[in-house]
């Protein structure tokens, strides 16, 4: 028993199953040497990997040189794309590509300048480069398998396992194609040096150059080149094999040369075998020794409708239409242009598509050569196809299931091992286009598998999302529980007064909810309550406690009917309370000013809003709001109440403008709030006693200036304070509606004591306001000092002020009822 190497050396051949012997028409195109066609004007270079593995290095309008790289990218199977000639990129767009579907792919359209200037090339010799460098050079040259499949060659030249046998495929079994034949005849030495590079890289035990016996000249040329080459003797041999279609198929060729069958789903490298096309060997040699990238290939232009059939060097990216034009293509209606041979090729839907790296033949047959499509007849179960099948499949069964669209059953008959060689269709007496059915079934299976994969992916993502939502929910609950526990602990640790205060607060709120007819005020209270609940900070709790204390103290003093006492006490208690008082005073002062307002105010605010940016739009909205409210209220307005204070109006208006002018857009909100408050106050004026309010213009001016000063001093956080004040006012308004006597309300606000104020006279009130605003000024300074560094605290103060007011209002309502 001879070993496989001995048998290879002997030239032993094995029989491959199936196969056919179609009529050979190679002489049509293989009579003349490979020639060149005039350079086309326009090239279409598809860059399909852009967006996935690669990026473009050129843009529209760039000048490119011949051989310049157009894309860069990373990835195992990434191959760069090169400019086939020098010129300008006139477009990068979707363009129909050389594919049975003619679907558009992203392509660079290059307008040739006719110079055909090469970019800088770096020729090397094998000794200069290490193996990785050689592989990189091959990759950078963009070399893909030239036999048709266009698989990146550097991948096949860098196998994971040991390679014992390299087969150089010069079979070219398709009946029309002669590009490899002519290449071997004309460039046998170059091919042999390419084989040398492959030998250097893979270092196999044997290299077999396989050529069919219908190409004796090519075999002779290769043998001569081999004899003259410096390749080690005994390693490389030229083997001539009998002509049969499809011996050129990778798996079939391996079977013929070695007798081994490549298992289903495996690649030849697993058997220690690699197959390369002769064209690839030529391109490798060009890349290493000349530095030239793969930008042109030999294409057989053949068929009876081509005036000058033969083999031509065509730059990759030449359009089929251009190539056919230059070889005197005889155009006729319904002319088929077939890419590849008649057995495995596909007809083009349009001719403006580029020549690609795997395009070895353009066949333009006449009616005599390839009969027009005949109607398919019923399968007669003759079994010819099973005899012809080189992959030992059962074409009938596959056809049966493919036609019935039972693709999974077709798959169970090893549909994926079909090489689509077309032998079965060729021998079919019923003219059934069997390969078409298989292609449909294969693509359906491919899509089905892809959908399955996507469904699996979607399921995983869906489950992960559910898990995430669940986790988030749990985290939220845990946090809420923790906060509750903390609150509980705080409640326990502080003194009993806190509990009492909380109880009092709740009672007050309840009272307010029951008495307040306006839903707005109750909802606002509700939100405030919830805010108070949510806030977990100890500081807030303490503030509330202190506020409660202050209130209690104030009430106690009120019971004694001593108002001065209460003010002094409120100053003593702590600055929190003082702040409350200050805010109240501010509010009151402003109110007093606003009572005097006429329709002019909002219109005067508007010009200032025009100056400032888009946030101002909100101001405008607020103004509009205010106007609307005012209009409704106007019906009830007592005109005499509004008449006496023109000076106050002017001053307050200028104040508003001054506060909005500094362009700090947050301030604009303050203005808006002020405007809103004004409008509401206006409404309130209807019900209030004018005489009580009359003495206040002076305090009004002062307080407004104060407000302005504070807003100027401090940043946007302050604005919120103002907003809170405005909100509180709004609530107060609601309260006022219930109040029988307006002055009572105002005074009750000014002082925290509520009960004792019914009999107060205007002079006292005025005095109180003055004292209140004084206190506030001091407090403002204090707060400005300690708030500016810690602005978060400020926001809380504002909230506390608003809250306090709300509660106070509730109290007053209660008092009113009593």
């Amino acid at each position, binding site marked *: 028993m001879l070993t496989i190497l001995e048998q290879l050396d002997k030239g032993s051949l094995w029989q491959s199953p199936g196969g056919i012997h179609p009529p050979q028409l190679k002489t049509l195109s293989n009579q003349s040497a490979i020639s060149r066609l005039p350079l086309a004007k326009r090239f279409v270079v598809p860059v*399909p990997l852009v967006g996935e593995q690669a990026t473009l290095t050129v843009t529209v309008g760039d000048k490119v040189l011949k051989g310049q790289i157009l894309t860069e990218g990373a990835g195992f199977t990434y191959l760069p794309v090169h400019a086939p000639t020098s010129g300008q990129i006139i477009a990068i767009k979707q363009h129909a590509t050389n594919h049975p579907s003619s*679907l558009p792919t992203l392509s660079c359209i290059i307008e040739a300048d006719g110079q055909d200037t090469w970019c800088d090339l770096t020729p090397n010799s094998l000794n200069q480069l290490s193996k990785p460098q050689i592989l990189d050079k091959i990759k950078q040259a963009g070399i893909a398998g030239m036999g048709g499949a266009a698989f990146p060659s550097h991948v096949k030249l860098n196998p994971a396992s040991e390679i014992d046998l390299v087969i150089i495929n010069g079979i070219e079994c398709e009946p029309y194609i002669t590009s490899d034949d002519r290449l071997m005849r004309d460039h046998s030495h170059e091919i042999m040096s390419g084989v040398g590079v492959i030998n250097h890289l893979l270092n196999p035990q044997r290299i077999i150059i396989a050529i069919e016996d219908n190409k004796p000249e090519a075999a002779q040329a290769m043998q001569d080149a081999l004899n003259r080459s410096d390749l080690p003797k005994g390693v490389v041999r030229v083997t001539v094999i009998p002509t049969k279609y499809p011996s050129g198929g990778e798996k079939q060729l391996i079977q013929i040369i070695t007798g081994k069958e490549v298992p289903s789903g495996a690649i030849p490298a697993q058997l220690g075998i690699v197959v390369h096309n002769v064209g690839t060997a030529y391109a490798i040699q060009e890349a290493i020794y000349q530095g030239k990238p793969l930008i042109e290939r030999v294409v057989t232009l053949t068929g009876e409708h081509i005036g000058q059939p033969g083999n031509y060097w065509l730059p990759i990216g030449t359009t089929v239409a251009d190539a056919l034009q230059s070889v005197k293509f005889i155009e006729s209606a319904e002319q088929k242009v077939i890419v590849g041979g008649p057995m495995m090729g596909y007809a083009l839907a349009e001719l403006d598509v580029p020549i690609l790296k795997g395009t070895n033949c353009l066949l333009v047959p006449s009616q005599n050569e390839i009969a027009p499509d005949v*109607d*398919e007849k019923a399968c007669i179960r003759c079994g010819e196809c099973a005899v012809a099948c080189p992959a030992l499949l059962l074409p009938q069964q596959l056809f049966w299931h493919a036609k019935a669209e039972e693709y999974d059953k077709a798959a169970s008959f090893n549909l994926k091992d079909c090489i689509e060689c077309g032998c079965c269709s060729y021998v079919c007496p019923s003219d059934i286009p069997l390969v078409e059915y298989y292609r449909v079934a294969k*693509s359906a299976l491919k899509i089905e598998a892809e959908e399955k994969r996507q*469904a699996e992916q*979607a399921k995983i*993502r*869906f489950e992960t999302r559910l898990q*995430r939502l669940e986790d988030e929910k749990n985290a939220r609950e845990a946090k809420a529980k923790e906060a509750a526990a903390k609150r509980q602990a705080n409640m326990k640790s502080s003194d009993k007064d806190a509990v009492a205060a909380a109880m009092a607060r709740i009672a007050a709120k309840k009272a307010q909810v029951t008495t307040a007819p306006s839903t707005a005020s109750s909802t606002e209270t509700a939100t405030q309550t919830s805010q108070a609940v949510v806030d977990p900070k100890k500081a807030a709790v303490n503030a509330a406690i202190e506020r409660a204390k202050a209130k209690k103290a104030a009430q106690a003093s009120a019971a004694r009917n001593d108002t001065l006492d209460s003010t002094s006490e409120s100053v003593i208690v702590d600055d929190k309370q003082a702040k409350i008082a200050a805010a109240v005073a501010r509010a009151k002062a402003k109110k007093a000013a606003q009572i005097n307002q006429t329709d002019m105010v909002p219109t005067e605010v508007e010009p200032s809003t025009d100056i400032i940016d888009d946030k101002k739009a909100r101001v405008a909205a607020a103004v509009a709001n205010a106007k609307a409210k005012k209009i409704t209220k106007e019906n009830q307005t007592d005109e005499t109440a509004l008449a006496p204070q023109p000076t106050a109006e002017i001053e307050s208006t200028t104040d508003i403008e001054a506060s909005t002018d500094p362009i700090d857009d947050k301030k604009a909100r303050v203005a808006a709030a002020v405007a809103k408050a004004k409008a509401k106050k206006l409404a309130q004026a209807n019900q209030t006693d004018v005489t009580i309010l009359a003495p206040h213009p002076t305090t009004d001016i002062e307080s407004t200036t104060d407000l302005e000063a504070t807003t100027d001093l401090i940043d946007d956080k302050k604005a919120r304070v103002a907003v809170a004040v405005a909100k509180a006012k709004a609530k107060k308004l609601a309260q006022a509606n219930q109040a029988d006597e307006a002055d009572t309300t105002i005074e009750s606000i000014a002082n925290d004591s509520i009960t004792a104020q019914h009999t107060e006279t205007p002079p006292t009130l005025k005095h109180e306001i003055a004292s209140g605003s004084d206190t506030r000024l001091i407090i403002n300074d204090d707060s400005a000092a300690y708030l500016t560094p810690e602005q978060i605290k400020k926001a809380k103060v504002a909230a506390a002020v608003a809250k306090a007011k709300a509660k106070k209002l509730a109290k007053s309502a209660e008092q009113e009822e009593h």
Partner: protein
Amino acid sequence: MTSILIAVAVLSLLALVFGVILGFASKKFKVEGNPVIDQVEALLPQTQCGQCGYPGCRPYAEAIANGDHINKCPPGGTATMEKIAELMGVDQEPLNAEAQSSVKKVAYIREDECIGCTKCIQACPVDAILGAGKLMHTVIAKDCTGCDLCVEPCPVDCIDMIPLETTLQNWDWKLNTIPVKVIHSEQEEQAC
């Protein structure tokens, strides 16, 4: 008398032995859950669109296993319905939803119009929308199942369902052969 006792004893012994065997078998060969649910779920398209009225594909698979109608999955179409019918051994039913085009779609957010409300992100069952509050959102097209659930919540209607573009990768050879097949079937009918 002894023979009766022997009979009783033998029968009791047999009962005990078989009881032990059955008890062992019930522990050893216990099947967790209903395997049909997994099989049905494997057939469903996993768009998680909720058009069946259940929150996701698995709940619907459970419902089918419990005897619900099999025609509630518009994304799966008739093909899925037929497969489920075969699996469950029930009669095929026409889809109850209006015939949905079989073209696969993906959501696309017109990014200029997006206001960053995150509503679509919350609606997406497969977390295929990327974005944050007040920032533009975008759809990760490869993970989008085309379930339409994000279209409804968008307050500015900036989400379109765009049919998936045919590329060289997902091109179906069938497209070109559709007219050919129609002719074949007509001829066969004539032949018959």
